[in-house]
C-alpha cells in the first residue's frame, strides 16, 4: 500500500504513530518497524524543521516496539506465560491506551478550533468606563507607597525558575590524559610498535580517542615514543622507546587536564 503523505504537520510522536498505524495498517510483528521508520523518515523530510523532541520520543517508542517484537519472535515465546510475557502485554496495552487517549484529544482539539474560529468573528467591546467616571472609581493606589512600588518592580524582575533539561540519566564521560597515559604505559611496552587505530580500536567515544591521542603526544614530547605516519591522513604508528630509567609514574602527569563530554 503506497504511503500517503499529507501536508498536515504532525505534532507529536503518538499522533505520528497513530497516523502511520491507522493509514498503513502496519503490522508491528511482520513489517512494522522498518516500514514505520521508513515512513517516519519520509515524513520528517517533508517537515521544514526537525523537532528534536518529537524525533527522540519517536525513537523511544520505536525501541519499545522493537523490544516487544524481538521478544515475541523468540522461539517458544508463544507458549511461555511467565510474568515477563504478561508484563509485555501490559506494556502494549498501555501504549494502546495512550494512543487511544491521544486520538480522543486530537479530535477534541479540532472541535475547540472550530468553536474558536466561529467566536473569533465577533469582537468584544472592552472600551471601559468613560473618563467622566474616573474620579468615582476607587483609588487603586490608596496606601501604596513609592517604596512598595519599588519592591513590586524588583519582584517582577526577579527571574522565575527556568525549566531545564534533566540530564542526570545521561552518564557523563569523564576521561583524563593521566589515565590514558597510565593505560599506554601498560600497553605500549608489551606491544612495541602499534598503529594508533589499533590502539584505539576498542574505544567508543570520540572524546576517549582524542584524549588517548593527547596522551600519545605527551609521551612523544618526553621522548618515550616515536611517531611515524604514512602520508597525510595515513595511520599513525606508535613505537615504544622506553622511559630510560625512573619517572614513568603516572603521577608525573598530574597537572594534565581532565576532559568531560
Amino acid at each position, binding site marked *: 500500500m503506497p504511503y500517503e503523505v499529507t501536508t498536515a*504537520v504532525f*505534532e*507529536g*510522536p*503518538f499522533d505520528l504513530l*497513530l497516523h502511520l*498505524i*491507522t493509514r498503513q*495498517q*502496519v*503490522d*508491528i*510483528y*511482520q513489517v*512494522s518497524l522498518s516500514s514505520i521508520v521508513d515512513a517516519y523518515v519520509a515524513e520528517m523530510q517533508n517537515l521544514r524543521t526537525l523537532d528534536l*523532541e*518529537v524525533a527522540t*520520543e519517536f525513537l523511544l*517508542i520505536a525501541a519499545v516496539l522493537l523490544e516487544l517484537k524481538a521478544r*515475541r519472535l523468540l522461539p517458544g515465546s*508463544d507458549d511461555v506465560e511467565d510474568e515477563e510475557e504478561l508484563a509485555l502485554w501490559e506494556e*502494549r496495552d498501555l*501504549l*494502546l491506551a*495512550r*494512543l*487511544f*487517549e*491521544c*486520538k*480522543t*484529544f*486530537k*479530535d*477534541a*482539539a479540532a*472541535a*475547540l*478550533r472550530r*468553536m*474558536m474560529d*466561529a*467566536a*473569533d*468573528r*465577533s*469582537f*468584544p*467591546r*472592552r*472600551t*471601559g*468606563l*468613560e473618563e467622566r*467616571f474616573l474620579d468615582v472609581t476607587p483609588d487603586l493606589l490608596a496606601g501604596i507607597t513609592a517604596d512598595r512600588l519599588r519592591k513590586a518592580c524588583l519582584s517582577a524582575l526577579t527571574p522565575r525558575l527556568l*525549566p531545564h533539561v534533566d540530564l542526570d540519566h545521561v552518564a557523563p564521560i569523564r576521561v583524563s590524559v593521566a589515565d590514558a597515559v597510565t593505560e599506554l604505559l601498560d600497553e605500549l611496552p608489551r606491544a612495541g610498535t602499534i598503529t594508533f587505530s589499533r590502539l584505539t580500536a576498542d574505544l567508543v567515544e570520540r572524546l576517549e580517542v582524542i584524549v588517548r591521542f593527547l596522551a600519545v603526544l605527551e609521551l612523544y614530547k618526553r621522548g618515550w615514543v616515536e611517531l611515524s605516519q604514512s602520508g597525510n591522513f595515513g595511520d599513525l604508528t606508535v613505537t615504544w622507546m622506553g622511559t630510560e630509567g625512573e619517572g614513568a609514574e603516572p603521577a608525573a602527569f598530574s597537572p594534565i587536564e581532565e576532559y568531560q563530554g
Partner: protein
Amino acid sequence: MATEVERAIEAIVMVAEDPIPPHLLAQILEVPPARVEELCQSLAESYVAEDRGFELVRVAGGYRFQSHSDLAGYVERFALEGQSNRLSAAALETLALVAYKQPISRAQVSEVRGVSVDGVMRTLQHRGYVAEVGRDPGPGQAVLYGTTARFLEKLGIDSLDVLPPLAQFVPGPEVMDALDAGLRHGGGQHSTEVTTTTDEGLSDESP
C-alpha cells in the same frame, strides 16, 4: 418604551471591560437576577430584530456587547491587536487536555501528549487561556492548571458545562480495530491467539 432598568443595563454593559455577571447587575439595579436575565434576553432579541451591527451575548458567565459575526470582515480591517494569531495544533491539543481534565499538572499533560509540554503550557499561560489553579496536595506539590474566563471568551461559550462532551470524541470501534491491528496483530503462528484477543478487546471497547 424602554424601562429604566433596561436602559441602565445597556449603559452598564456598555462601560464594562469584561462580561458582566447578571448577579452584579442585579445588585446594582436592585432587581432579582432572574429579572436581569429576562431583560438581557429581550434586549439581545431587540438588537437582532433591528438588524444591528452589534449583539448582546452571554459569554464566560456574563453579558457583553460584541460586534456581529457577519461583519468580521470590516472589523478586521480596523486594526485590532492579538486577534489573528491562531494557536498551533500542539497548543490546541494541550489546551483541550487542560479544559477537559482540569485541574491537571504539567506532568499529567505530558503523559498523554507523549512529549514535554513546558513550552506549550507557557504559551497558553502567556495568552491567558490557562492559569495556575492550585497545587497537588500529594508529594511534590505539582502546580495544577485550569482554564480561565478568557478561555471561555475565546471559545465564545458561557461556561465549561457547554463544552461538547468528551465522549463525543472517543474514537469509534474502527479506529480501535486499526490500532489493535497495528499493535497486537501477530503474524504466522500467533494469529489464532491474537485474533481471540482482538475480539475480546473490541467487544470491551465498543461504546
